[in-house]
């Protein structure tokens, strides 16, 4: 199992390294199109721009984290209500589907009209982008308790608290984490997109300006940073999951295990 995973990792790392080396060689020969920089040029740009990058990253990350935390808190609270109040689940679920049906592309300009291009808009867009997966994961998870386990708890005359603590919450965790992983990446991307509508600073702004001034290495650098951020947020949740959900099979066949 571990050997297979290592082999897979080797293929991935080797593949990425191979492509980077090929791009670098092409760049050295001058065979790359104008819009594709050599990887070393992107690295140089990264070192040059590190102060500006930090300046732009701070508000984006802050908006993503605050929006994500708000969305997670709201989604878990709603799932708790759905668990405790009979019949609330359908209503909440429909509400969530409605929220999810609002395209971010439509919501962001409206929010800019209402709140301006300040941090509020970015936080709300990040929250909108991360709310739905968490709620679906939480509700699905609380619903996913095995019938025979439920019967066992019934036979053992377990109380409501014990049932929640020992049966329902642990059973929900893998599903919840599937939602948390997707939404963590979503929050980062939501914050970036909202900056395209207008912001004074932020990674999305930096990306757009680099594009408009045709600073090719800077566009690629911003892209690489945003991909690393999104995958990093996803991976952070994955790491947390591996520490918390120890009983889940380690081969990644848990429910909804997929990249963002």
């Amino acid at each position: 199992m571990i050997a297979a995973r290592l082999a897979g990792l080797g293929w991935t790392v080797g593949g990425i390294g191979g492509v980077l080396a090929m791009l670098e060689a092409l760049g050295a020969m001058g065979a790359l199109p104008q819009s594709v920089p050599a990887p070393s040029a992107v690295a140089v740009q990264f070192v040059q721009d590190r102060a500006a990058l930090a300046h732009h990253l701070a508000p984006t990350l802050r908006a993503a984290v605050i929006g994500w935390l708000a969305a997670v808190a709201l989604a878990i609270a709603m799932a708790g209500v759905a668990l405790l109040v009979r019949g609330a689940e359908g209503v909440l679920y429909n509400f969530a589907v409605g929220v999810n049906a609002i395209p971010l592309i439509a919501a962001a300009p409206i929010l800019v009209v209402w709140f301006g291009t300040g941090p509020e808009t970015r936080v709300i867009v990040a929250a909108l982008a991360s709310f739905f997966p968490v709620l679906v994961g939480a509700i699905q998870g609380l619903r996913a308790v095995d019938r025979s386990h439920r019967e066992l708890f019934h036979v053992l005359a377990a109380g409501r608290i014990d049932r929640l603590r020992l049966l329902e919450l642990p059973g929900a965790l893998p599903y919840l984490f599937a939602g948390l992983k997707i939404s963590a990446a979503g929050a980062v991307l939501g914050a970036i997109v909202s900056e395209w509508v207008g912001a004074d600073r932020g990674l999305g702004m930096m990306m757009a300006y680099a594009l408009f001034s045709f600073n090719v290495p800077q566009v690629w650098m911003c892209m690489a940073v945003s991909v690393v951020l999104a995958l990093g947020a996803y991976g952070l949740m994955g790491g947390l999951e591996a520490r918390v959900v120890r009983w889940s099979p380690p081969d990644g066949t848990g429910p909804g295990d997929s990249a963002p």
Partner: protein
Amino acid sequence: MTRGGTGELPVWAGVALRGVASIVVFAVAFALLWQGAVWALAMPPYLMPTPLDAAGALVGQGDKILANALFTLAEAGVGLIVAAALAVVLGGLFVASPAAHRLAFPWAVALRSVPVVAIAPIVTLMVGRGFWAGVTVVVLAAFFPILVNCMRGYVSLPRGALEMMHVLDARPAEVLWYVRLPYAVGFVFSGLRTAAPIAILGAMLSEWLTGNRGLGYLILDSAALRELDLLWAAIVVSMLLGLLIFWTTATLEGALRRV
């Protein structure tokens, strides 16, 4: 697969009718909610227009909205068709050759984990600002869900069909043409159904950056100029566009499954 219970109507027509009905119900409910929100929150018109204002803009600036909507729809449509064609060919290759699968499939997965937000600026750099930038973003965003479905379609065949072809001594190409492709069609369309909303969103997102034409550009522009009637009209049209393309693919899927 089975005949519909609705008398004379074929199944796909039922699906189409239900699609139209659901769009109408959605639009009416949306307008009522919207008007209710404006009244309940006492929203001034410089923050939120009423549905009637937006309808006025829809009629008054109809040709502007229509031209931009058609541009976005064309980007999404062409992108979806190209993505489906690529998925059918590459999916067949991946199913037929384990080596190709091993070599190229991880790249398809990697492509999928690069978000559209990050791809769009690069595509704009490489393709330039215009129609084809939108199409390229749509292809990149829509390719993976269609590919996965398509590959599942090629593989999940009834055993009997393959055995029958074996008995008939069919060549691999004939198996592909007579068995695998017909069975994959339904799967391709369910992939298209998943990809359709992504396609509209991807096209509009790329228009935010290219900023020439299209519904995404119109939304951003009218927001910047505080033409709120036009903004809301364009947003409603973009939602209807998403529903329209979703139900078109669903209806086509139903019609093809009947054949």
